[in-house]
């Protein structure tokens, strides 16, 4: 007997994504970046902190591919270790805001009525505070509440907490809208009528159906958070030394822009390429999941 290949929604989307060359190249690029970041100890040619006083501020060359900084540290290695921090911040804060946003949005959308309008009013208020202002306020608050932590760890955790808190509003809005839509569907009515409890309807029936748009939002949230983190670190409020992310590396380079421009350009370019890849992949995913585009 000939086996019928499944033509599920996921398979369909996957096939459409594979056809999108830009998205595939972006995905491969991002995988390489994440791989290098995760196995930085093996991949990086030099140690993260190894200083060599005889080789400070070298231009890119055979020995140090991207040159060295003012303390004689290899820039390529620092960028690889910086990727660890930038990617970790981007991915974990997005996941945290995803969890918060999905729970909040699902509750708001599922119960509706007064609960919904109260919960959404709160979201509206959060929405009017500029993200960066909210971010900085949360970080300030966190910094003064977690007094027992080391200052450098405090800045690190503060950045994580602040970015997670800022990102969830968008996701909550999206999930609420989707849940409101799905609630009208017949399969939900069927589930309700056979007595499936609310949380099971949400987790087993509605959530898998709205996973597409959620994944797309996540792919756009990660680069936004990476960018935000580098902004914060660049203006001196985010990650503190000895930790390094692409933002702090760029901030280091900014101080010696005139004489040694390569120090700011290389972390900037790798950040740019990663942002580009995330955006292209996000676009590809959106097109792949978009029901309007389906034939």
């Amino acid at each position, binding site marked *: 007997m000939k086996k019928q290949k499944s033509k599920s929604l996921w398979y369909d989307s996957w096939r459409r994504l594979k056809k999108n060359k830009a998205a595939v190249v972006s995905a491969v690029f991002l995988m390489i970046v994440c791989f290098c970041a995760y196995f930085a100890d093996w991949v990086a040619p030099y140690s993260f902190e190894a200083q060599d006083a005889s080789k400070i501020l070298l231009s890119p060359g055979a020995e140090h591919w991207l040159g060295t900084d003012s303390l004689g540290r290899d820039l390529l290695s620092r960028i690889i270790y910086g990727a660890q921090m930038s990617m970790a911040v981007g991915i974990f804060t997005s996941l945290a805001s995803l969890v918060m946003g999905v729970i909040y949005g699902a509750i708001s959308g599922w119960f509706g009525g007064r609960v919904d309008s109260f919960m959404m009013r709160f979201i509206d208020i959060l929405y009017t505070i*500029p993200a*960066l202002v909210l971010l900085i306020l949360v970080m300030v608050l966190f910094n003064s509440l977690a007094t027992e932590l080391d200052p450098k760890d405090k800045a690190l955790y503060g950045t994580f907490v602040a970015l997670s808190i800022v990102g969830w509003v968008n996701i909550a809005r999206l999930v609420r809208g989707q849940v409101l839509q799905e609630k009208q569907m017949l399969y939900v009515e069927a589930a309700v009528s056979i007595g499936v409890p609310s949380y099971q309807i949400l987790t087993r029936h509605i959530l898998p159906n709205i996973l597409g748009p959620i994944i797309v939002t996540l792919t756009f949230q990660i680069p936004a958070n990476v960018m935000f983190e*580098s902004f914060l670190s660049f203006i001196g409020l985010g990650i503190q030394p000895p930790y390094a992310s692409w933002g702090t590396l760029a901030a280091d380079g900014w101080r010696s822009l005139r004489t040694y421009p390569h120090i700011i350009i290389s972390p900037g370019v790798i950040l740019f390429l990663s942002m580009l890849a995330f955006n292209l992949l996000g676009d590809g995913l959106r097109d792949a999941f978009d029901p309007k585009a389906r034939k």
Partner: protein
Amino acid sequence: MHLKKIFYFVLSMGLLMIFFDLSEFEGPIVDFANFSFAFGIIALFIYQVFAKKMSYYFLKRLMGASFVLFIIATTTFLMLRLMPGGPFDSDKALPPEVLANIEAKYHLDKPMIEQYVFYLGDLVKGDLGESYKYIGRSVTDIISESIPNSIKLGLYSLLLAFLLGIPLGALAGAKHNTVWDTSAMFMAISGVALPSFLVGPLLILFFTFYLDLLPPALWESPVHYIMPVVTLGLRPAAIIARLTRSSVLDTIHSDFVRTAKAKGLSASVVLFKHVLKNSLIPVVTMSGPLVANILSGSFVVELIFAVPGMGKHFVQSVTNRDYPLILGVTLLYAALLVLANLIVDLLYAVIDPRIRLSN
């Protein structure tokens, strides 16, 4: 149509102001233009409130906006006062008597509720208190000194974003699936992905160090404006371009466009008068969030180009624990955002009569 007339009046006065600013023109005529612009905006608001159809909706929006501001003021106040560590915990320990005097001066010895009442009362009077760090200077002073620079930077960037983004997006949408479309969209997606701390330094390297054409920093004459405005405006321009493109693609297949084509109108008339005009509504909706985007971006840009604006003060006030300044700047940013959203609502009514009638 009164609304349209007032709108065009405001628009022309705004353009006049920009012209005066860029040509560094001074004199009573500048004050007149500023005054007319403000007058026009207020007239637009009043018209909206009293025009029969919109009044209820618009009043509701106004009330909502002031409620949001009140909530933000309260939250920032609570957040900052609940934090351990006072603004006067510096490296050098102050004698207790001196500390008590300072705290008495700023009402820090009073209970929270009383501090809050003091604060709200002053706020209503437009008094944001005195800065803790810059002794003897009021927050209102510091803000009013730095905000014109930030507003100018933001407005010019927004203008650049529209002037660059809309044509680019329209081009891409009209020539869908051609080389034009692909290259325009590649530019747009790059613009979204470019961090401003890469664009800014690259511009400085090229135009200052290599070509020696533009000054690398400060905010004194229109020559100084160019690089910060480009750096800040690039990202919003890219966002607008993508939005315009998808909106044009949505509109271009509508029946009225087919009718217009069937009437034998030229391609450019169809594009500009029929397609683009109807595609701009989502773009206008986006300008509220765009203002927030520009506000956030201005922190980095002001740092890179040493623009004496609000961003610098905000970052410094946070590290200095200068409570009144933090509160003032936060409130102001929120107010700007709320105001931007209100103006977007006003523009809605001008652009799309359907919205005016249905609400």
